């Protein structure tokens, strides 16, 4: 038996129609990142007269990998609810790199231990961030910014201005190629695939997206909001630490300013990747598109021979345009 609905058919239908279109377009903003990245790639080697397409792509992939790692961490934090950002990513990268490189002394046999220490540093940093937010009721931006000063000065006291050399094995890993294919980005792609499954198919992932949409609703659905958000900040700290660890190997050592560009980039790739800053959405695969876009754009503008100021300006304009043009999802 079907009891007649009180919602008149006439008003219900157009709404349902437009919602259907919206749901079909969801994730389209993520795909846009890939599309623009592909265009940039073609433009780059067209400008270079058809030369160096492979080299351009492999450079972009290697640099994008770091952006993807921190972006994925930031994605978890942003997804956990409106207003949640981790601005301590650059300093956690630096601190984890300094501590682990310092402990390894450039010796290959200590690599596993050093990596474990880096992970621990990231987890503790993330927990401290969340502690300040939850216990002191600080806005996330303020809390993570405040901690980032602490982390940065710790790194400064540990290593000073010097660059600490990585073990040779680590450096080799970050640039290792198997049959001409770089291995490190493949590892990061595997991480992305795992994260895509985590947000869609695990209890943690669903709970994370639920608290991001409605904290009160999640509480009443029996979800342990505090614990889920703590995990998201800890995972973000771990992601920053991994990025710092690998970047030390890639660039030849831990340096104080090594994470500087990643504060902006980590947020930008999440948004360009198709998630809403209002929370409740996560699109790990879209982050790759966005990160490739950023790095290909940088390469293209470099080949034009533009100086840094103009490059940044054009990057900013492109980001604004893409976010404005892309279709909005229900969370916006």
């Amino acid at each position, binding site marked *: *038996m*079907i*009891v*007649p*609905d*009180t*919602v008149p058919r006439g008003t*219900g239908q157009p*709404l*349902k129609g437009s*919602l*259907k279109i*919206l*749901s079909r377009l969801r994730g389209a903003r993520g795909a846009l990142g890939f599309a623009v990245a592909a265009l940039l790639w073609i433009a780059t080697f067209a400008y270079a007269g058809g030369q160096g397409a492979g080299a351009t792509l492999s450079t972009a992939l290697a640099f994008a990998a770091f952006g993807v790692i921190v972006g994925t961490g930031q994605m978890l934090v942003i997804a956990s609810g409106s207003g949640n950002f981790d601005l301590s990513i650059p300093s956690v990268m630096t601190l984890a790199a300094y501590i682990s490189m310092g402990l390894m002394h450039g010796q290959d046999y200590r690599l596993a231990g050093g990596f474990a220490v880096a992970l621990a540093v990231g987890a503790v940093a993330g927990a401290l961030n969340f502690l300040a937010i939850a216990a002191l009721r600080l806005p996330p931006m303020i809390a993570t910014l405040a901690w980032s000063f602490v982390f940065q000065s710790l790194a400064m006291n540990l290593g000073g201005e010097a660059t600490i050399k990585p073990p040779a094995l680590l450096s080799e890993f970050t640039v290792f190629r198997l049959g001409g294919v770089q291995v490190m980005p493949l590892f990061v792609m595997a991480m992305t695939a795992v994260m895509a*499954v985590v947000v869609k*198919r*695990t*209890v943690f992932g*669903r*709970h994370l*997206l*639920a608290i991001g*949409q*409605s904290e*009160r*609703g*999640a509480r*009443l*659905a*029996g*979800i*342990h909001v505090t614990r889920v958000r703590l995990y998201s900040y800890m995972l973000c700290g771990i992601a920053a630490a991994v990025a710092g660890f690998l970047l030390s190997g890639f660039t030849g050592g831990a340096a104080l300013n090594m994470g500087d560009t990643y504060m902006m980039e980590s947020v930008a790739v999440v948004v360009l990747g198709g998630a809403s800053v209002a929370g*409740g*959405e996560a699109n790990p695969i879209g982050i790759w598109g966005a990160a490739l876009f950023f790095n290909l754009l940088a390469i293209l503008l470099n080949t034009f021979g533009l100086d840094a100021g103009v490059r940044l300006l054009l990057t900013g304009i492109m980001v604004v345009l893409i976010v404005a043009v892309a279709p909005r*999802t*229900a*969370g916006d």
Partner: protein
Amino acid sequence: MVPGDLIAMDSIRKAFGAVHALAGVDFHVDRGEVVGLIGHNGAGKSTLMNVLFGTTQRDSGRFHIAGREIAGAFTPHQAHEAGIRCVFQELSLCENLDVVENTRILHRSLQGIGWRRRARRLIADQLDAIFPGHGIALKARIADLPIGARQMVEIARAFTVTDAPLRCVILDEPTSSLGHEATRQFLAFVRQAAGQGVAAIVISHRLDEILNVCDRVVVMVDGRVVAQQRSEGLTRPDLVAMMGSIEVPRAVAKARDGSHDQTRDRVIDAPGRDAHDLPIHLAPGEIIGFAGLDGHGQRERMRALFHAGLKASRDRHRPAVAYVAGDRQTEGVFRIWSIADNLTIGTLPSLCRGPLISAAASRSLVEGWMARMKVKTDSADRPILSLSGGNQQKVLFARALASDARTVFLDDPMRGVDVGTKVEVYRLIRAEAAQGRSFVWYATELDELTNCDRIYVFREGRAVEHLEGTDIRQDRILAASFGGMVNA
């Protein structure tokens, strides 16, 4: 209209969507008359006053003030010009301004050089007249005043006069934050003002005050005036009886087998906060109701019991309690998600095969509940917001009932839900209870409570009355809600 009436409202109607807030109300106030307006939540008192004050427009009906017909739209400014003032329950003072500045807001004529001095004199005199010895600093910002003082300022300001006449003051729960002495002063002043020809309309749940100060009592039920009478000789039980005078057809009391052991196996056994607060207990398979006027602590108690239940759950991932929120948009649905995702969020751990949620298990759970709840949609993958409110509520019910929870809390879940859905859900709740599930049900509509085995009536944050079986009657609930005498 009777000539000489100050306010004459005839056949006033107002509908919000399908809800008839005012279904043809006749309401008259004489010069210098004090009228008490009483009724349960949602009876239409506030809507009627909003129409009178111009903050809501009537759909139809004739409306005269002081013999002049009000045709078409009516604004609060026109109401002020016509001599009508309003003291709002949620005070209307600007918190960032001081007492004198708030007085100026009401009176446009207080301008030019020296307005502050004149406004100060005006409000100071009025405060002294109503609340002698009030001790309120006129330079204080409203935000810095205690709530009682704010209410005094709001009242005194409503009685100040400059260029517009003062004919009638609407007082909506005026004494809710006043102390004992201030209440006495205020009621005396209302009588004194009435002697000088200023009428008043008093809305209050404190029936003693109504009987004390009013010449006449008007009772509203379901958007209609059902009774009005001179208050002389009336008693509190009379008023309560008048409010319950429309008989809502009551479901035949269910024959309960009484096999519940009253103390063993209780799923809830919570002591009251103090000696005046009844302990609350709940046996498996029982449905208990929280009744009383809206906002008297029912929801807070439900939340406290729910969170205590969460904490006590042995397996944190399979809590023994579930909650169905009535405020769907902010506490119920997850807006970005599909119907299926919204339905399964409370049950995820039991849908897991290994570390991952099984798509097949989710689908079979969702399809089962969609069929059982008769959710009207062609696919559970559609966005939750594509459903009507009633169907969204069904999904929220399914979320709670699909879980392992032994106790389900219903937080006024039928708000804005159509009758057909209500009947279906009532049936489902009873079926679930028959299988041993327990329910705690906060309902603001009296007839919903007839689905309950037992009822706790709340007043001022406490469970003050416990009704069972055939004692669950409107008059008993109303009497306890309003603090009237209970003579069964």
